[in-house]
């Protein structure tokens, strides 16, 4: 589904990604781990199309289609979803109105009519139950005054509503207590299917106890230095990242 080949990306001429190769197939969950500053969030942003980053070399494609020329919104219309580490507050725009706008803009881009109101309502009800979100929450301004847990739950709620082909969860576990983590992970697990793929970006192994990955990759200094199965995550938890850094420099 997602194919990344020899990806080099920079911001303000500072090289961040230095040759990433990654293939993610439908039905798979990949975890990308690594120390701070290794380029994890940059990789997520580059896949989602953040314009500050410049792709110097290599390419990214989704279902065989090159993404490089597409704007962030066009990538969203193609089925890419990024759950943000720091979701942005939008005062005056309710969660419900925001998600309606997002869904209908995507439908418009695909040449479809707006989703009928009753259908939208049903979908919102169904997906908010999945994430244990109550109705009052839906009429609050997007992310304004939300706790860390509420923000992340809201991100996964949006993911559930938009049903992306490829979801990237960027540090979704940061700032979550154990209950919120369980709810978020449970929501993500229910959204797993043979038709979609998920990339989980995390610093810690904790989230991966709940969202069990098929593959684990370790990012260091802009490169994937090690790939393996879920056991690799446990090894990292035990040994930290230093042994990999040494291995990489050797």
């Amino acid at each position, binding site marked *: 589904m997602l194919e990344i080949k020899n990806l080099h990306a920079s911001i303000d001429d500072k090289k961040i990604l230095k040759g990433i190769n990654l293939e993610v197939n439908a039905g798979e969950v990949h975890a990308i781990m690594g120390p701070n500053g290794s380029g994890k969030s940059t990789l997520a942003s580059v896949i989602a199309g953040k314009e500050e980053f410049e792709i110097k070399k290599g390419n990214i494609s989704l279902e065989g289609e090159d993404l490089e020329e597409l704007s962030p919104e066009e990538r969203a219309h193609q089925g890419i979803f990024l759950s943000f580490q720091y979701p942005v507050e939008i005062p005056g725009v309710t969660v419900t109105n925001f998600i*309606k706008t997002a869904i209908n803009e995507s439908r418009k881009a695909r040449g479809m009519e707006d989703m009928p109101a009753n259908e939208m309502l049903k979908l919102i009800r169904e997906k908010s139950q999945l994430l244990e979100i109550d109705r009052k929450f839906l009429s609050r301004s997007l992310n304004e005054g939300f706790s860390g847990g509420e923000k992340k739950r809201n991100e996964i709620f949006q993911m559930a509503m938009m049903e992306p082909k490829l979801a990237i969860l960027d540090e979704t576990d940061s700032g979550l207590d154990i209950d919120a983590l369980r709810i978020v992970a449970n929501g993500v697990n229910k959204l797993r299917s043979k038709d979609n793929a998920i990339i989980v970006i995390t610093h810690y192994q904790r989230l991966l106890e709940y969202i069990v990955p098929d593959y684990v990759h370790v990012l260091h200094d802009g490169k994937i230095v090690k790939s393996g199965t879920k056991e690799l995550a446990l090894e990292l938890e035990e040994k930290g990242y230093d042994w990999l850094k040494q291995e990489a420099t050797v």
Partner: protein
Amino acid sequence: MDLKDKLLSSFLAFENTLDLEHPVHEVRSEAIKNFEEKGFPSKKEEAWKYTSLNSLQKVDFSIFPKQENTLDYKDIKKYFLHEIDTYKIVFVDGVYSSYLSETTHDGVDVCLMSSAFSKPMFRPVIDVYFNKAASKDESLTTLNTAFCREGAYIYIPKNKMPKKPIQILHLATGNEAALMLQPRNLIVAEQNAEVQIIERHQSLTDNEVFTNSVTEIFAGKDAIVDYYKVQNDNDSASLVDNTYISQKDSSVVRVHTFSFGGKLTRNNLNFYQDGERIDSTLKGVTILGEKQHVDHHTLVHHAQPNCESHQDYKGIFGERSTGVFNGKIVVDKIAQKTDAFQQNNNILISDKATINSKPQLEIFADDVKCSHGCTIGQLDEEALFYLRSRGIPKKEATALLMYAFANNVLESVRIPELKVRINKIIANKLGVRVGFEL
């Protein structure tokens, strides 16, 4: 002949049409003397550094319209907040239109300054309030005072509240090549009275219009006044709005100014706190494009202890537009425990747009809380990316962010239909249609 000379010579003719025995005659005579001495403000004056009236003074404005014009309601309906029932005081080219208006004397007076000046029953109110809050030496205010004849007169007696909000609408038809208007409004809410007022100036053609308006608002003890100014005029209309507010103990006055259009707009908004536990709120949203210019000059004078003021002005400036915010807060020595808050945030969305923002605090008391903040920035790129990554196109995402930026000013609008209308004007101004009422 420049505009000042024309005005001075017109004054003589104007006086001949009036009752020279009326006490207001003396006020007018004093006022024209002041204007004659001072003339139009120039850019050399600090308060007018960023706003020039030079080009307006070269226009050959008609001071008095030659003929009365009639308009069809259907043609101007959109300028009213027609979704709700309101009293209406409508002027066409400065002349009262009874056909378009709906006034009342049922417990409250919602009518005209010309009646208030001429009818003896209004005389006690005129004697106590007229020209008592307005400046006696600011030249444009005195110019208006010299020519005062018509405008809205609203008197709410003790413990009363009109059945519905009041709209004041000034229309210019363009039947004159260039027209100068000088409406004069007097609004009095006596003790524990309450009133909501919406004011709008609208030119209907491309002919030049210059409005120099003065509004005096008096809020008695415990009174509540909400005043909404909708400024979305076309590009040949200029407005100088001088508003003077005087508040007594525990009164609440909130003025919202929505500036979305017009060639040149200057708002002089002056609050005087003449009592304790007063709450004064000044809020504004300014969204400009093209070569539009809006200058907000606010003054809050804390003259008594234990009062509050809240100022929050948001500005979004595109293309070659220019904005000014000058917020002055004066706290007298006696005004201990004052809580004065001022905030001015601006976003520039074009390299050619300009904003000049200046807080001006003069504090003579030592036990006060005064805070002010001013920001000038660009649109938050991270926030824009967030919205776009949800499939919302750049233009709509930009509009949503601007809306969010201006939102807390809109939150305190107490007429829901007006809030919806303002949102529509904003969406229109930003050129977007999103799936819900923006």
